[in-house]
């Protein structure tokens, strides 16, 4: 029923050596200039969007939590760029990058953070709960690892319907210690579900370093316990992410099997903006070091300048465009209304919202 043999880890590192750059890998070399620029626009757009949202948060215009993806942009950008019609994606609360990558507008995302009626969830979900089913994006989930069984469920549905797609289920390095995820690994392997668990390993779960949360820190290796193949790679080079993820996605679609992809990355900001503490549990040097050598935007920019796809001028204008777009989204959000109070009790039950003839009997809500 389920595969019990696992091939040894193929680290993307080695693959990297074969070519002097992941840019030369077929999946990347075939990219048109437009497509490469689109990748650049995306990583930059996510960065500028979140920087602007941080500003709004600090001005007290956005409340609740704000978990920034800054530093990890190449992962969602690279993987989503490989998605086909029947591929689906789901992630945790650090979900802005994935949202923009699948094509959600800055307007609906910013408005959602503001809690406005024009937000992607009408202001009902907030920063941690973005959804775009029409773009195969199933959220945006606030409970650590709570999305992982759902990700397996998306894969289950694809297999059940005979569709040739895969489910991309993102989680963090701290989420790997939730029972729901570990149970799901066994289920996905036992039932041969085409789901790829993408562990965005940024080294910390809030203020807890990987060493203090996992007894054995090669997280992808956990796949061995359930007969799931895995691979580990770095997340700062969008082309490396694409090269490795592409193989995993093809395998999931073709062989209809789960896979674990651990991607080493780093978050520049605190766990959430409320995390004033993040200079205490890691050094300034550690952060600067990563920014200097592995910033996903700089790394991509350098490659595109080198291969002539990009010029400094183009970079400037793209930067200006996404900045303007982010600025416009703030204006949009601020000018948008909140939902009317009556909306508090809509979107609770499908049957109520659709007032299905004859079907709607009894009381659904219980305030005096």
């Amino acid at each position, binding site marked *: 029923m389920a595969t019990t043999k696992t091939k040894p880890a193929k680290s993307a590192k080695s693959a990297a050596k074969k070519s002097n750059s992941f840019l030369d890998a077929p999946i990347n070399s075939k990219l048109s200039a437009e497509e490469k620029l689109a990748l650049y626009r995306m990583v930059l757009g996510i960065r500028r969007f979140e920087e602007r949202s941080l500003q709004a948060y600090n001005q007290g215009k956005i409340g609740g939590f704000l978990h920034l993806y800054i530093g990890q942009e190449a992962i969602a950008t690279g993987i989503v760029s490989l998605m086909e019609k029947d591929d*689906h994606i*789901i992630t945790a609360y650090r979900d802005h990058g994935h949202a923009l990558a699948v094509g959600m507008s800055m307007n609906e995302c910013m408005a959602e953070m503001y809690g406005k009626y024009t*937000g*992607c*969830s*009408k*202001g*009902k*979900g*907030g920063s941690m*709960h973005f*959804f*775009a*089913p*029409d773009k195969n994006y*199933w*959220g*945006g*989930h606030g*409970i650590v690892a*709570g999305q*992982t*069984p*759902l*990700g*397996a*469920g*998306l894969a*289950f*549905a*694809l297999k*059940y*319907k005979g569709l040739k797609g895969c489910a991309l289920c993102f989680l963090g390095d701290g989420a790997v210690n939730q*029972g*729901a995820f570990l*149970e*799901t690994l*066994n*289920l996905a392997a*036992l*039932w041969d579900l085409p789901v790829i668990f993408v562990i965005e390993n940024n080294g910390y779960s809030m203020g807890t370093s990987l060493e203090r949360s996992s007894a054995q820190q090669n997280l992808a290796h956990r796949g061995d316990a359930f007969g799931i193949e895995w691979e580990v790679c770095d997340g700062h080079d969008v082309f490396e992410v694409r090269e490795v993820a592409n193989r995993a996605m093809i395998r999931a679609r073709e062989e209809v099997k789960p896979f674990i992809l651990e991607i080493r990355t780093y978050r520049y900001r605190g766990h959430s903006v409320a995390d004033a503490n993040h200079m205490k549990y890691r050094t300034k040097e550690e952060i600067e070091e990563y920014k200097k050598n592995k910033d996903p935007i700089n790394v991509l920019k350098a490659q595109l300048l080198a291969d002539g796809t990009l010029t400094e001028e183009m970079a400037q204008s793209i930067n200006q465009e996404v900045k303007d777009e982010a600025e416009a989204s703030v204006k949009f959000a601020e000018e948008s209304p909140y939902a009317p109070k009556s909306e508090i009790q*809509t*979107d*609770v*039950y*499908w*049957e109520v*919202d*659709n007032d299905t003839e*004859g*079907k*709607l*009997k*009894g*009381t*659904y*809500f*219980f305030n*005096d």
Partner: protein
Amino acid sequence: MPLITYREALKQALAEEIERDENVCIIGEEVAEYNGAYKVTEGLWNRYGDKRLIDAPISEAAFSGLAIGASALGIRPVIEMMFMSFSYVAIDQLFNNASFCRYMSGGLMNLPIVVRGPANGGTNVGATHSHTPENMVANHPGLKVVCPSNAYDAKGLMKASIRDNDPVFVMENTILYGEKWEVPEEEYIVELGVANILNEGTDLTIVSHGRCAIISLNAAKKLKEEYDLSVEVIDLRSIRPLDEETILESVKKTNRVVLVEENKPFCGVDAQISHLIQFKAFDYLDAPVHRVSAIDAPQIYAKPLEDWQIPNEERIISKVLECIG
């Protein structure tokens, strides 16, 4: 009409819906090859095969969440909790994901899953296996819950629940699985949110649900014979949505109410029904709303003591007499 068991009625509902809709599948521990721990799915795996009946490992959180995720893409999974008590290891998936994803997405998705399994005591299996969590389920907007007390309702409510586009919990009862009732051969549905008056009466109203409704009906018969009391017995069938109208009409007629349920009293379903009645029929009440619930302690193992702990005819009768005063 043929007499069939509660178990058979549930099975018919599952089989009919599996045949009606290719997206309906059953997931749970021992539901397929083993034919179900309580044989509710007996024969279905032989008939419909691996795709529609899926045996799961002992990972309730994972397969509950999996069913929720699959339902987002149009699959309509019916997951079996061998005991509803085991849903305690899957509460986050059921109470956060199944109940809130629609809301948090601003209505962009809906999750048509059914969570079914026995939720009852009285079988001498101890505290960990005797939970009746319909109160906790109903506390979470986004979820629905029904508690069939007989074969007719079991089949009709199960079919309605599977066709419902929201998550529905169907609370079954192991003690009823083997009991028989008349069930029509032609297809039918029992809509959610519609209570059933098991017995018309004028002196007092008993509101109950699940197996307790049957015990209440028997108590009502004795109360007629032995005390010439005319007791109306209402079987809620559905807890959320709730048929307030039927409850209130009856109370306005009889002016006295006893609520009977198997759950522990603190915040049991009947606490809510009690509030509802005194709030909406205050001027019609000649006596306070009385309750018969499980004696407030973890479910005891010893059979005779457990039979006393959960509502029985004797305790119901004395509570009714107390309420009539």
